[in-house]
C-alpha cells in the first residue's frame, strides 16, 4: 500500500466536507493510505504570497518539513495547496541560496527543510500509483451518460516550469482520468482560462464576470456538469451561480462537481455517504444519469 501525508489546507475542511469525504473514500478504495499529520498550517497561497513571498515560502517549507519528519510524501486535494507547496519544494530543492535563506527563518521554529520528499496532487497519485487500468477495473457505475466540462483550475498547471504537472497549453491528464470513468470530457471555449476566484473580496464584480464566462461556455457546449479540483474554483462557480442569478438575472443550473465526487460515485459509493447537500447548485440531474 502506498502511503501519503494528506495535506487538507483551509478551504476544504472549512467549507467542503463533500470534497474531503469523496477523496478519502475513493483513494482508500484504490489502495492509497492517507495519513493525517499534526502541525500543518495554511499552505501560503497567492493571497499570502501577495503579502510576502519570502514568508510564504517559509510557511510552505514548514509544512513540507512535517512530512519530511514523518518520512512521507505529500498529497494535496486542493490545486492551490498543490501550487504553493510544489512550487516551494521545487524552488528550495534547486536554489541553494534561497534554501539557505528559508532555512535561516525556519531555524527559529527548530525546523530545517531538507528537500527529500515529493509534493503531489492526487491526480498524479491516481495516474502513477494507482494507474488507469486499476481505476477502469474498479468502476462499477460507469459515467457513460455524462458530458463533463473539465476545469482543472490554473494552479494545477501553471507555473509549469515549477509544477511540472502536465503541458500547460494542451493538458491531457485530467481529461484522461475523467474518461477513465466512462464519461466524455468535452471541449468548451476558453477551457483553460481562469475562474477569476482570486479577485473575490477585492473586485467582486470582475471576479463574477469572469466566472460567468466559464459557466456560459460550459453551458453552451452542452456540459452536464463542470468537474473541478480546486475548492476555490468550486466556490467561485457553485456559489457564484447564486450571485449570477441576483446580479445578471440569469439562471444556468450548471452542477459543479469535484472530480473526487465523480470518482467516488463511479466506484459505487452511495450519494448519501457524500454530504452532497453542500452543493448550492443541486446535482440531482447528474446523479440521475449515474446508474
Amino acid at each position, binding site marked *: 500500500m502506498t502511503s501519503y501525508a494528506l495535506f487538507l489546507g483551509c478551504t476544504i475542511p472549512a467549507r467542503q466536507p463533500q470534497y474531503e469525504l469523496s477523496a478519502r473514500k475513493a483513494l482508500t478504495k484504490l489502495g492509497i493510505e492517507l495519513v493525517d499529520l499534526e502541525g500543518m498550517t495554511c499552505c501560503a497561497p497567492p493571497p499570502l*504570497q501577495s503579502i510576502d513571498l519570502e514568508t510564504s515560502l517559509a510557511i510552505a517549507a514548514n509544512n513540507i518539513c512535517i512530512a519530511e519528519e514523518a518520512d512521507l510524501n505529500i498529497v494535496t486535494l486542493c490545486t492551490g495547496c498543490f501550487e504553493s507547496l510544489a512550487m516551494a519544494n521545487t524552488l528550495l530543492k534547486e536554489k541553494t541560496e534561497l534554501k539557505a535563506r528559508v532555512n535561516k527563518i525556519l531555524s527559529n521554529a527548530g525546523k530545517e527543510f531538507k528537500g527529500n520528499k515529493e509534493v503531489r496532487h492526487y491526480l498524479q497519485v491516481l495516474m502513477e500509483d494507482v494507474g488507469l487500468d486499476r481505476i477502469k477495473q474498479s468502476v462499477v457505475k460507469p459515467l457513460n451518460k455524462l458530458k463533463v466540462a473539465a476545469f482543472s483550475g490554473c494552479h494545477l498547471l*501553471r507555473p509549469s516550469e515549477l509544477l511540472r504537472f502536465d503541458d500547460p497549453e494542451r493538458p491531457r491528464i485530467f481529461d484522461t482520468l475523467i474518461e477513465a470513468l466512462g464519461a466524455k470530457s468535452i471541449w468548451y471555449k476558453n477551457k483553460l482560462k481562469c475562474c477569476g476566484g482570486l479577485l473575490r473580496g477585492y473586485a467582486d464584480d470582475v471576479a463574477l464576470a469572469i466566472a460567468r464566462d466559464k459557466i456560459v461556455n460550459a453551458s453552451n457546449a452542452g456540459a452536464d456538469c463542470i468537474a473541478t479540483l480546486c475548492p476555490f474554483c468550486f466556490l467561485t462557480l457553485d456559489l457564484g451561480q447564486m450571485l449570477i442569478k441576483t446580479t445578471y438575472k440569469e439562471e444556468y443550473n450548471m452542477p459543479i462537481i469535484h472530480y473526487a465526487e465523480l470518482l467516488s460515485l463511479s466506484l459505487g459509493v452511495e450519494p448519501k455517504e457524500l454530504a452532497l447537500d453542500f452543493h448550492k447548485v443541486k446535482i440531482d440531474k447528474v446523479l440521475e444519469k449515474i446508474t
Partner: protein
Amino acid sequence: MAEEKQEKVTIVDFSKEITSKLGGETITFCYQCGTCASSCPVTKTTDRFNPRQVIRLALLGQRDEVLKGDSIWLCASCYNCQERCPQKVEIADVIYALRNMAISEGNIPNIYAEFANALISEGRIVPISKFLEKKRADYGLPPLKPAGIEALKKILSATGFDKITAKKGETQ
C-alpha cells in the same frame, strides 16, 4: 536639466528596487510586446488592469502610481501571461513583488489584512467553524489535526509578517 537627471535616477532606482525583490528579478527583460495583456482573463473583462501597462509604468519609475494604485491588485494570479511571455518575464511573480512592496509601505487592501489576521490567529486563512468541526464525526471524517500555531508564530515573527497588518494606512 537638473529635473531630467532627477527623473532618470528615479527610473533606475525603482527598477533596481524591483529586481532586488524576490519575484521581481525579471521585470527589465520586458520589451512591451503585449502577449501578457492578450493572454489575460482580467484585461479582457475590465480596463482596470493590463499587465503590460503595469510593467511599463514600473519601468518608467512611476512608483506612486504603481504601488498606491488599484491595478496591481487586479491580477488573478493565473500565470497565463507568465507561461507565454517570450522574454521570460515572470509577470505574475513581478506582480507579487510589487504587492509585497506596496504592503510593506502600508498599502494593504482590507481583504489581505483579513487573510493575514486569520493566519496569525488560527494558522489558516479560512477559519473552521466549531459547528463544522463537530459535524465531522457525523460525516465519518476523522478529527481535524490541530494546526501548528506555535511554530508558525515563530516563523511570522522572524520575517516581521506578524507586524505587517499593523502598518495598514501608515503612509496613506
